[in-house]
């Protein structure tokens, strides 16, 4: 019965696992400070995996493997493809930074990042509560170690502790909630849970009790208010290369587990979790945007901006079912997927700037470190400005279409409450525009501070990738149709598998 295992669904994961081990071995023989060989091998692995996933995705097939423990569907394939690309970009930006801070010695950096990506892959592919949980733990455990990689640095160690304690708490919440749902439905399989709930034979109180814990666990991982406390500290304290590793690709996985758990597993409970998401979304939009105004540290500001952006993302997640109908599901979850992918692209650009401006003994993480950047490097200032305008949702940048898609899915539900919610959301993003504009102001309107290096020592490969990254924000803004259709089709294929 070897065929029914459908090994094909996990080829990318196997490649990742093998290569993570190979790279750990190879690194023993590499002595150069920049670790050129292991770096190249890692990028090669990621490129192969990304191409493989893109190939699977274009096939458009939904294949279950290992007794329906894992699934390979277009949504998952695309998310894994983008997660690999995001990690590639992260490594291109982050390698010189990590080398300067002695983080490449020992070779854990590349191996751990591959393991963290493997965790992301398992989370995305998981079609069983325990598999999803296992992927989550693999990802977060690798991340804890990555944050603590600069063990002599006090803030990094503090951030690692906070991340670990609160992350473990969140995992506990999630696991507890999942066990409740297992108790009520008698299954860990996503599809069977869905059917059990839909049959209405299950005790509703137990389900909702479990659901509360699941949503709280997810909210922790997403950084939604009131479970956001860890996020600013970890973003600020972690070495910037690791911050980007936590802040970019894992968001794709967070979206995926929201889809797997809440939509594929518990859509019949939508009326319950939508209310919880609404509270989380409103809180995140409000707290994230207001608190970001007060920040002087750029990484911390971007952390609060992430909280606010996740609030917007949650709005899309809650618009899928209205009045018991699912006709809005494809557009709403498609909007959420588009939102997350473009958010990751923008985050990469913004943190890429911070990484490339940093140098030995200088972090470039205060907002004032960007002062007069336009005079020092028009390219860097231009990319950062594009990223900021995109996060603020100003057309013709891609962030605008993400917000537009969310607003569309909210209003398409036809619910007056959602109309009020969308007006609230745009007003919150008006507040958000202020602090994004402030970054542009510092770069363009202010003179460079005394003591800032006039020359920027970024490597050519990083420069090229950065220009490409910034250019994509604009190009996707001029022609967002392709990516939108991609997300829409992927979600449509997923919605089709739901048993109604």
């Amino acid at each position: 019965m070897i065929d029914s295992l459908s090994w094909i669904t996990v080829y990318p994961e196997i490649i990742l696992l093998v290569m993570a081990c190979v790279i750990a071995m190879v690194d023993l023989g590499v002595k150069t400070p920049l670790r050129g060989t292991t770096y190249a091998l890692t990028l090669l692995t990621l490129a192969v995996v990304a191409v493989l996933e893109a190939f699977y995705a274009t096939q458009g097939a939904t294949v279950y493997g290992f007794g329906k423990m894992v699934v390979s569907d277009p949504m998952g394939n695309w998310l894994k493809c983008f997660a690999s690309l995001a990690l590639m970009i992260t490594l291109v930006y982050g390698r010189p930074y990590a080398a300067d801070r002695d983080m490449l010695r020992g070779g854990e950096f590349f191996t751990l990042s591959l393991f963290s990506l493997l965790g992301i892959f398992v989370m995305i592919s998981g079609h069983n509560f325990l598999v999803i949980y296992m992927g989550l733990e693999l990802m977060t455990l690798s991340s804890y170690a990555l944050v603590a990689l600069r063990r002599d640095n006090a803030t990094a160690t503090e951030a690692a502790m906070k991340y670990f304690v609160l992350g473990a708490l969140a995992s506990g919440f999630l696991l507890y909630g999942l066990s409740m749902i297992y108790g009520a439905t008698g299954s860990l399989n996503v599809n069977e849970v869905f059917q059990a709930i839909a049959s209405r034979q299950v005790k509703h109180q137990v389900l909702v009790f479990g659901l509360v814990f699941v949503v709280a666990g997810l909210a922790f991982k997403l950084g939604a208010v009131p479970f956001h406390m860890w996020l600013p500290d970890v973003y600020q304290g972690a070495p910037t290369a690791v911050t980007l590793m936590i802040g970019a690709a894992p968001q794709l996985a967070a979206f995926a587990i929201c889809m797997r758990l809440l939509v594929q597993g518990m859509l019949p409970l939508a009326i319950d979790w939508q209310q919880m998401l609404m509270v989380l979304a409103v809180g995140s939009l409000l707290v994230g945007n207001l608190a970001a105004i007060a920040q002087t540290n750029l990484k911390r500001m971007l952390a609060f901006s992430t909280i606010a952006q996740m609030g917007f993302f949650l709005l899309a997640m809650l618009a899928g079912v209205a009045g018991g109908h699912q006709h809005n599901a494809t557009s709403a979850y498609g909007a959420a997927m588009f939102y997350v992918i473009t958010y990751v692209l923008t985050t990469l650009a913004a943190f890429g700037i911070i990484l490339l401006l940093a140098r030995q003994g200088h972090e470039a993480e205060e907002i004032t470190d960007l002062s007069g950047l336009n005079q020092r490097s028009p390219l860097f200032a231009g990319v950062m400005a594009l990223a900021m305008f995109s996060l603020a949702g100003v057309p013709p940048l891609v962030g605008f279409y993400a917000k537009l898609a969310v607003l569309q899915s909210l209003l398409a539900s036809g619910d007056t409450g959602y109309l009020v919610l969308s007006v609230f959301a745009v007003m919150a993003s008006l507040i958000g525009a202020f602090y994004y504009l402030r970054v542009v102001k510092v770069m363009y309107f202010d003179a460079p501070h005394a003591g800032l290096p006039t020359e920027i020592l970024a490597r050519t490969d990083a420069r090229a990738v950065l220009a490409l990254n910034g250019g994509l924000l604009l190009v996707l803004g001029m022609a967002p149709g392709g990516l939108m259709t991609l997300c829409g089709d992927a979600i449509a294929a997923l919605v089709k598998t739901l048993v109604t």
Partner: protein
Amino acid sequence: MGLLSLAIWTPIFFGVVLLALGRDEQARAVRWLALTGAVFSFLVTLPLYTRFELGTPAMQFVENLPWIARFNVNYHLGLDGISLWFVLLTAFINIIVVIASWESITRRVNQYMGAFMILSGLMIGVFAALDGLLFFVFFEATLIPMYLIIGIWGGPNKIYAAFKFFLYTLLGSLLMLVALVFLYVKSGGSFDLATWHKLPLSSPVQTLLFFAFFAAFAVKVPMWPVHTWLPDVHVEAPTGGSAVLAAIMLKLGAYGFLRFSLPITPDAAHEWAWLMIALSLIAVIYVGLVAMVQQDMKKLVAYSSVAHMGFVTLGFFIFNPLGVAGGVVQMIAHGFVSAAMFLCIGVLYDRVHSREIASYGGVINTMPKFAAFALFFAMANCGLPGTAGFVGEWMVILGGVQFNFWIGLAAATALIFGAAYTLWMFKRVYLGPVANDDVKGLSDINAREFLMLTLLAAAVLYMGVHPKPFTDVMDASVLDLLKHVAVSKLN
């Protein structure tokens, strides 16, 4: 590529080239490239006028390509009699701005010129867009270059002004975005303006939509009481920025009323016309009085812009052909005259570095040629017959009298206030004996400034003496619009 696409993308292409290539060491080459680009961009808009077919309200030069398939958004462009002149005006003002900034901008010349070229293309896009989302994208995208122009090359309080400009206008347009998406959903998945024009809507929905559009356009126009950003921004913006802001950007808002508020929510427009007329009259009279007491020349012209734009919105909401056509003519005329007024202030500011009226006096003695131009534009600003400023105001007043004698009379008082504040400023700045050493040391305008002011003066004079080409073009479109607005859309 269609003519309209060419009109939009030519300046943007030149702008991108300027941003990519220029360095301050080659400022001279950058300026010439910018001028070439601006002239070329203007030339490609000329066929739009020569090939424009009169007497039909239909959209012309239509281009319609699918853009975002998932939302059924189309790259749908077209011109009618209302929008035609604004495309040409935008391209024309762009040339003037490049000439005006030839010497005064020395830092990051390529970014300055590039920003204006891109801005010009985006604004043409606003006037040409026939798709709701495309309109919004162009409308919002203009904020980015203008924000940078004010913030980088502005005066001492530029940062405050740049933020005020951006956030104030963003506030309005975000509400409009919700309205646009609402209409998209309501119309069953279309962003097409023509579809929206036909969409029946209930009365409360129309009222909500009307005020959502009002939030965006009234701020942009700007109407009293949301006009307070304009004087602050004008004072801090560089001369070119002020000229484009007054000449074109304010018109984006007024144009929005004609394309969105009136045809999409005609019943709400009729219902709330009293409010719009009241706000317009307050702008005309009260803001006119406010202009009179200003100490700063730019502030004075900024308030005068608010008052003149009050005429435009007044004309739109009295719903008769004279009023609407007069409003549009006034928009074009104000485009020329306000640009010229700001450039005149710029000429003085370049030499003395002060905008205070009190720092001048007797400029006519040292700059006679310039004073002649300034007098001419001052006369145009107060609406002297024979200049562009007269035509639109006269049409609106006539329309106002047709609508209601007292409204016409109230609007007509603006001619008195307009003359009062403009001429009083002219007297204090230009006439009398030489006031101080700064004025004594002034040198008259050079060939570049002469060329720039001559171009504008010719336009103002031509439009004043022979407004037929302007009004002929818009007649059919204005009548069609009014016919459409007169029909109720309540179902």
